[in-house]
């Protein structure tokens, strides 16, 4: 879908045409879901936020200005909604009880060569992801799926940017050992 077709769909949506929304959904729902999932990393929450995302696109159709690059427009909305949901979830977790896990110390202390140091070329993508720590996978998801910058990831997670880059480098190291040399 090019920008012109997307603009036509948005105009039709502003007039109440649900078929136009359906067309955008068929084209982008999996990609937008991956962007949301990259931030939230929970399927159920990612599905809810993705549905709300298309509702917001429907409601803001009349305010859309054509020619601004619709993919960036959609990715920005998806990312912001996912980040808002993530912050809300973190507040809820904090109200339930403070998180005692200190990922930074764990990352620095865990510098000894482990099983990930072994070169395993035949692992699937899922097996490769399972070798990553949750904190590392979080950064990788935001960077690869949601196409966020390190600064954005740092601001979203509320951790120093050095920690973000540290985790990302550690994840790349493990993924390379699994045979992935590109796409970082």
């Amino acid at each position: 879908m090019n920008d012109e077709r997307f603009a036509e769909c948005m105009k039709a949506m502003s007039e109440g045409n649900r078929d136009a929304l359906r067309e955008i959904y068929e084209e982008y729902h999996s990609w937008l879901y991956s962007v949301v999932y990259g931030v939230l990393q929970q399927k159920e929450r990612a599905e809810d936020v993705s549905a709300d995302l298309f509702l917001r696109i429907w409601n803001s159709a009349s305010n859309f200005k054509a020619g601004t690059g619709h993919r960036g427009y959609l990715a920005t909305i998806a990312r912001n909604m996912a980040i808002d949901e993530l912050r809300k979830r973190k507040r809820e977790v904090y109200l339930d009880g403070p998180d005692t896990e200190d990922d930074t110390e764990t990352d620095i202390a865990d510098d000894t060569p482990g099983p990930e140091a072994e070169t395993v070329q035949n692992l699937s993508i899922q097996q490769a992801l399972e070798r990553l720590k949750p904190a590392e996978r979080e950064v990788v998801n935001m960077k690869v799926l949601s196409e966020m910058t390190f600064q954005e990831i740092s601001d979203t997670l509320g951790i120093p940017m050095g920690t973000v880059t540290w985790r990302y480098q550690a994840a790349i190291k493990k993924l390379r050992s699994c045979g992935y040399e590109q796409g970082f």
Partner: protein
Amino acid sequence: MSRDFESEYQQLIRDEAPDFWGAIEAKLDAQEKAKTFETVLEQPAVTAVQENTAAATEPAVIPFSAAQADTPAAAEETMLNRPVRKKSPVRWQLFALPAAAVLCAALILPVMLHSRNAMETSAPDMAAGSAVPQSLMTDGALYTAEANFEEAAEAATDAEESSGERQKNAKNSTREETTTDGAVVEEESVVALQPAAGEEKDDENAETDGELPSSLILNLRVSGDVPEDFKEILQEEYGLEIITYDKKTHEYSVRSVRELNPEEEEALEKALSENPYVEEIRREGKE
């Protein structure tokens, strides 16, 4: 063999992406219902008025008849087509405001005017016009205030005139007696005129001090041919109050109605001694 992590990972997530179009449609429907409900809530009164007006001007009531009600569908259609005559709460609201205005005008305003007039009547010295702002006055209220003010002015004028007449009468009587009986009679008339003022002063002193003033008590033996109005003469001309009168001895026991200083006592005794009917004067003392 080089593998692209980004493309593989994105493809994995997209393959696993669920179909949530049903959730989107459900949220859209709920949103539209909410908007419709809000729209209905925002225009309830206007809708009711329009419906009532239409019912009054367009009697498009489809009468229900048994012939049309042969089938349940026909009967249902007839019932549905029947214009719904809602019991609108607007009607009593339309009459409530004028009724409240009438009640206010009929009950509250007269009470307020009456109370205002009572206040102005009780305090006539106050400026009636300045007591109430002119902008709040009706014509009737203004007329009443002016009338009260005029009445108060007339009453004050009458009081001044009556007091002036009293003073003139007193002066005239004094002058007349002076011209006829001489200087002594003038003193007696002055003494006789003073009891009214003296009484007031005595009353004031009694109220303030709680003690009765001491008055001079005299015993007067008069001749047997005193005139009938001798008692009035004693009271009016000499300022004496008769305590007792002995018909056999023709003796009066009198006392002055106010406290007299020694000079006044001597003047009184002298005046009495010069009275042709008084034969003897005895001072009993003071009470």
